[in-house]
């Protein structure tokens, strides 16, 4: 009974999440006139790679992909490098103003990003960082940092102090205790934070649009939006762009899945 319930639930979930994407992928391989046939066909009557070929031949899609990856990875690196010590400082030490700092960090989120755009651009211009990927990484880090701090703080808080204190009495330094005890236990939290940060940076449209000019620096969202807004909309090509975007993501997530599945079975915590 329980099994059937689970099976149904799993199927429904997969269908809900995947069906639109499956449709996109099927459309990517249809020749253009077939895309506008009514009633629509499910499987392509004629499978064709022409859309994908056009995508790579006529656009800078490959470049956009690389740019997005670089910028997102950079954002994750910088955000974690700053947020992990930050969250550690907020949870493992008692000091005055700790709560206030946490609150202020959250406040920065409440100002709608789109209103920040123009002053942010002016600032980047003054720093000569417009039209650079570094500038974009800084923008995304600033945007992701409050959230990363909050999430890591929450995860660190859920890990009992006693475990590190045990390590400390065994003679380890604070740094060693953090590295050997806290971080491994907080691994799911680190991965979750890193993942969320990557996604926020990967998905952003408006900062990339305003801060970048050169076509060779564009990230995927901007590149794909331009394809969509091109006056001659090539649906087959757009759908193939969307499909290709999924491939590296699928690979990344397969890897992360394994990690999450292993959970963390070391003593004291559920395996």
């Amino acid at each position: 009974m329980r099994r059937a319930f689970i099976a149904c639930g799993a199927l429904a979930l997969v269908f809900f999440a995947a069906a639109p994407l499956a449709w996109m992928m099927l459309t990517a391989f249809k020749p253009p006139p077939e895309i506008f046939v009514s009633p629509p066909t499910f499987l392509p009557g004629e499978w064709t790679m022409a859309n994908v070929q056009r995508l790579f031949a006529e656009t800078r899609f490959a470049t956009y992909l690389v740019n997005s990856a670089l910028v997102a990875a950079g954002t994750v690196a910088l955000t974690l490098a700053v947020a992990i010590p930050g969250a550690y400082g907020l949870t493992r030490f008692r000091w005055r103003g700790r709560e206030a700092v946490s609150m202020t960090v959250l406040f920065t989120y409440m100002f709608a990003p789109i209103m920040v755009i123009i002053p942010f651009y002016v600032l980047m211009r003054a720093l000569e960082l417009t039209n650079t990927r570094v500038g974009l990484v800084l923008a995304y880090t600033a945007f992701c940092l409050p959230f990363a701090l909050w999430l890591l703080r929450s995860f660190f808080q859920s890990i009992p102090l006693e475990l590190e204190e045990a390590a400390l009495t065994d003679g380890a330094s604070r740094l060693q205790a953090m590295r050997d005890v806290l971080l491994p236990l907080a691994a799911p939290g680190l991965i979750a934070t890193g993942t969320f940060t990557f996604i926020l940076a990967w998905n952003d449209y408006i900062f990339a649009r305003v801060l970048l000019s050169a076509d060779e620096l564009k990230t995927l969202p901007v590149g794909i939006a331009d394809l969509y807004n091109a006056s001659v909309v090539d649906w087959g090509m757009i759908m193939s762009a969307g499909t290709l975007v999924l491939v590296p993501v699928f690979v990344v997530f397969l890897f992360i899945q394994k990690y999450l599945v292993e959970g963390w079975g070391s003593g004291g915590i559920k395996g």
Partner: protein
Amino acid sequence: MRPILAMAALVAALVVPEAQAQKVIRVWHTETQPNSQQAMRNIAARFEAKNPGVKVELEALAWTDLEGKIMASLAAGTPPELSHGQPITCTALQSKGLLLPLDDVVKALGEDNIFDQIKRVCRVEGKQYGLVHAAGTSLLIYRKDLVRKLGLKPPKTWADLVANAKALARPGMYGITIPGDNLFINILLGELIASNGGMLFDKSNRPQVTSKQMVETLEFLKELTRYAPPGWEGHGYRETFTNLYGQKAAMMFQGYGRGASLIEANAPKDMANADFFDVWVKPHGPSGKAPVAQVDEEPWMLFKGARNTREAIEFLKFFYQKDNYLEYIQTVPIHFFPITKSMRGDRDYQSTPMIQRWKGWLDAQEHYLSRDLGRPTLVVDWADMNNKPYLMEVLGSGILRDMVMDVLLENKAPKEATGRAQRRLEDLLKSKGYLK
């Protein structure tokens, strides 16, 4: 150790390929179609080869994004050298002293060589502050085969058009398709009010939307959209083309030359030609005498605050040279109507296969342009271009679109809808100081 190496590699990859060139000309344009972008890149590459030490940084943006970027760059005090813009944007910027004249380029092309209509765009006190990259009028596209079968005549008045739409409607196919986008509704309204002998704002900037001509326009649209697919307000420009070649609609009131390429790519093979999709000259309204078609003619603008304006002028001259301009025009040959008579009459241009196939579409555009029946968006009188710099804000505010939707979707009486729009427009103009 390994994470550190990875980190270093990442930083290197991020920082390294940022271009460092001596003189950079930033050129922003709205032709996002891949082959047009490629043509621009080719032209830029050839220019760079002829002018070592100069780098051309191109960017193609949708119109809505472009306006935002221009704004941000003006706010930062670093506008690009060259950019496309709407005609009304050009005059607005010029009125604030932010542009430089392009008369050098006009001279290089030959003042008499440029069509008169083109020169009227963004011309202030005898100087040309904007130079149109290519023109393209809006087109009333129709299914020639169906019209022939039904024996319908070209519509001379709005009533004729509605009758044709009604006759063409059948199960599975609607009579007409129009887009519901803010931009296109504004374009449409500008065209229609001009075709009906009316105006949007009078000489003292008072809005005229409560006029008889506007009420007639709204009533016409209400009638016409009875034969449009339900939910037409959610159709963008692209969807209307999809409706046309997907055979869901028999006419399209606001098509452009780009449609020819779309039809060739997407319509069923045996129908993808001018025998099935042709254009009519638009009809005029009951209070008007002649139709007016909007012209999609974005001018190049040269920004005063940019660094390398002299090189930018040279680039523009290079852009309009025959080989370069021809390559550009040929990327969207039916929509890019050339600004020079020499190109229009040029043999290579005329023998472009696509131009031969869709000749009728180009003739219709020439009809409007040569009889001075073409106007930029929201401009009714040419004087409006220079005297009414607030047209940009009117477009962006969506007030006119809201008025149309009030009548067509919310079923409000035209009197109520136009009254509301009149109040909102007056508030807008008063707050900007154009109306006392």
